[in-house]
């Protein structure tokens, strides 16, 4: 049986303080992650990888695959908040660099970082941070308007901004040309943002207490 979280259950989900009330336990280092946070971060990183596994659809055009992975990035922020959501994305980026095919369509390895579209991947980290930071505005509750704002600004705005800038730089394109090439992918991402907010709202209802409490680092 999975245990449910209640306000004074010491095993309840919270950022980095799960054991700190226990004397003699040094607790997670000031800046480090507690064991429970680590489990969440690794699980959502794995979720992003898994969402890239089945039938990745490559839209004709620019080598940026349309899959549920960006949905996973937004979801990480919406469910875990900014800090842990961003760390989950950072883990995926790191695994990619180590040489694992963690990106949609089985892509991965250092080649990705030499490619022109790497900005979209690197953008996941600040994108999830912004998504989660906004989504946690009403924490511990989940607010649909703030979550939507987060998914749009972070999951789409930040990711595409970084992606377009890097594309323009690496492919020697005018930023406007890079942006035009990128616009094809925005409608798909809008659908994914909506789906992410709907799913996050349902998950927060099923499992309350996931977002970091206000005052804790997001």
């Amino acid at each position, binding site marked *: *049986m999975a*245990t*449910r979280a*209640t*306000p*004074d*259950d*010491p*095993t309840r989900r919270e950022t980095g303080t799960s*054991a700190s*009330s*226990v*004397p*003699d*336990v*040094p607790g997670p280092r000031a800046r480090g992650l507690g064991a429970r946070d680590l489990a969440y971060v690794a699980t959502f990183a794995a979720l992003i990888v898994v969402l890239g596994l089945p039938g990745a659809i490559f839209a004709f055009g620019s080598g940026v695959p349309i899959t549920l992975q960006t949905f996973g990035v937004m979801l990480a922020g919406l469910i875990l908040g900014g800090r842990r959501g961003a760390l989950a994305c950072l883990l995926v980026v790191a695994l990619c660099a180590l040489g694992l095919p963690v990106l949609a369509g089985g892509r991965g390895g250092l080649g990705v970082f030499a490619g022109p579209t790497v900005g979209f991947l690197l953008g996941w980290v600040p994108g999830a941070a912004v998504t989660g930071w906004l989504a946690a505005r009403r924490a511990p509750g989940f607010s649909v308007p703030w979550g939507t704002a987060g998914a749009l600004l972070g999951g789409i705005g930040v990711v595409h901004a970084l992606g377009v800038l890097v594309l323009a730089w690496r492919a020697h394109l005018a930023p406007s040309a890079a942006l035009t090439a990128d616009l094809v992918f925005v409608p798909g991402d809008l659908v994914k943002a909506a789906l992410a907010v709907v799913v996050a709202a349902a998950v927060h209802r099923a499992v309350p207490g996931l977002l970091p409490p206000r005052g804790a680092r997001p």
Partner: protein
Amino acid sequence: MITFDGVGHRFGDRTVLRGIDLDLRERFVGVVGANGSGKSTLARCVNGLVRPTSGRVVVDGLDVGRQTARVRRRVGFVFPDPAAQIVMPTPAEDVAFSLRRAGLSRSQTTARVEETLERFGLAGHADHPAGLLSSGQRQLLALASILVTEPDVLVCDEPTTLLDLRHTRRVAALLHGLPQQVLMVTHDLELLGGLERVIVVDEGRVVADGDGPAGVATYRALMEADAC
């Protein structure tokens, strides 16, 4: 030796354990009871995964609430779902993870890992992805990763729920052969019958405390009374 001293626990306003006083000295102690009766909560108090809202738990003279880190080094904990307990990609890495603080050299670690996997019948799977192991093999690996640190006490929360009869018996035999004190929560009456001591928990209280056959009889009576 595990002592519960007036232990009670509430999750929010729901009381899950009340007035638990136990002195567990036997080498193998079973715990049985209905779903939701509080067995897992009781077991989790032994290594501080749950901190009781009243009373205290003492393991080999150490207060779990105050000396949690030291208690956790002495108490191994086996969970019902072996898939969630294996934290590293391969069996060898998972066992080695347990030894990270043992102060062993690389070659000593490798040797200990090999010898441990051998003992649990997993030598042939040392470097295979843990995801490919069967549930039974995973539970054996979970046990291997815990026992390699040589804890003094082993707490097992339904360690055989996901296993077939053969693996259940294998795990049971393994647990019975250990030098450690074992506290095992289970719904498997076959595993309880021969025990020297069985605790029956119901609605957060200890309702029976005696030898195996007595515990099983009380538990059956309890379940059948509820069924009408």
